[in-house]
């Protein structure tokens, strides 16, 4: 004999939430090779692992919640992957000479590029400011910042801050522009 309907409703609800978590896992798993790359290239295992764990939590949480947060997190991951690779690529080049002078500027450039990418995506998604577009942009920026930080760990705290500043500089005018025009 089946369970009463209110129990069934509860079971269905928890199954749905578990299902959403399970569906988020393959995307969250992408963080593992990013962290591994960061650990190998940057040589700061503790920082890379901490940032990676935070990134996995934020990404997993946003994907689990879904809607604008989930969409923003996916966009942020794509933009952040680019921001992760750029500082590493420049550092590889200069580290051959024993110096990593280009890394901090590469972090700022990666932040500007990543920020511009997520802001353009957010603007294309929805015209004008709204709670949904704010959630989308917030999730996208947070994930892109954390993903990019995995690459900027190589330049230390200055590199991470530089990337954050670059991202803010790129995001603000793009997001601000349509609301002013409207």
């Amino acid at each position, binding site marked *: 004999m089946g369970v009463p309907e209110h129990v069934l409703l509860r079971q269905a609800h928890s*199954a*749905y939430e578990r299902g959403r978590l399970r569906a988020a896992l393959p995307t969250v798993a992408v963080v593992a090779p990013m962290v591994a790359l960061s650990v190998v290239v940057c040589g700061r295992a503790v920082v890379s692992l901490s940032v990676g764990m935070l990134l996995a939590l934020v990404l997993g949480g946003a994907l689990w919640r879904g*809607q604008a947060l989930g969409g923003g997190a996916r966009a942020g991951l794509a933009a952040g992957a680019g921001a992760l690779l750029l500082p590493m690529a420049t550092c590889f080049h200069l580290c051959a000479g024993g110096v990593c002078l280009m890394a901090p500027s590469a972090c700022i450039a990666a932040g500007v590029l990543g920020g511009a990418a997520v802001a353009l995506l957010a603007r294309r998604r929805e015209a004008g400011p709204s709670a949904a577009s704010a959630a989308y942009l917030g999730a996208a920026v947070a994930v892109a910042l954390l993903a990019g930080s995995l690459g900027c760990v190589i330049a230390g705290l200055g590199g991470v801050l530089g990337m954050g500043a670059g991202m803010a500089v790129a995001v603000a005018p793009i997001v601000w522009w349509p609301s002013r025009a409207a």
Partner: protein
Amino acid sequence: MERIQREDLQRDLTRLADGDRDAFHPVFVRLWPLLRGFAARHLPREEADDVAQEALVRVFARAAEFDPRRDALRWALGVAAWEIRTSRRRRYRRREEAMPAALDRADGAPGPEDAAMEAERQAMVDDALAALPAADAATLRAFLAGGGSEVTGATFRKRVQRALGRVREAWRMSHGRP
């Protein structure tokens, strides 16, 4: 299910797949009676409710994977059909395990379980034939008897193919599988 209800289910399941929790209750309310009826058509009454509940929970567990380009109703019924098949397999396995060794026939002739399944299968075939137009049913009966009807050769083969197509369709509609 009417077209409008079907469109509503499509819209609500799409919202649910995107993570909109407000769509949870509408989907639940639409799917529960549907899956219950679907299971009741394919399983004994004492089993149908349990299987419908398992199917419903499974639908919600997989709701995040739902692709909005697919038909929501078909998708949900597909999940339910899988649960029904699993339940049937479980039931047959239980019966096989519970069957005392004494009932095994030494002469290799069909046992009571086989005979019952054969009778059930025959009844399903008879039902499907009864649902066909008389000409199609006569063609298939003649085909099963190993001979032709008033026509032979290519015309008979064509009629058999056409009748088989219709019986497949009727079978799919009433039993949910080809």
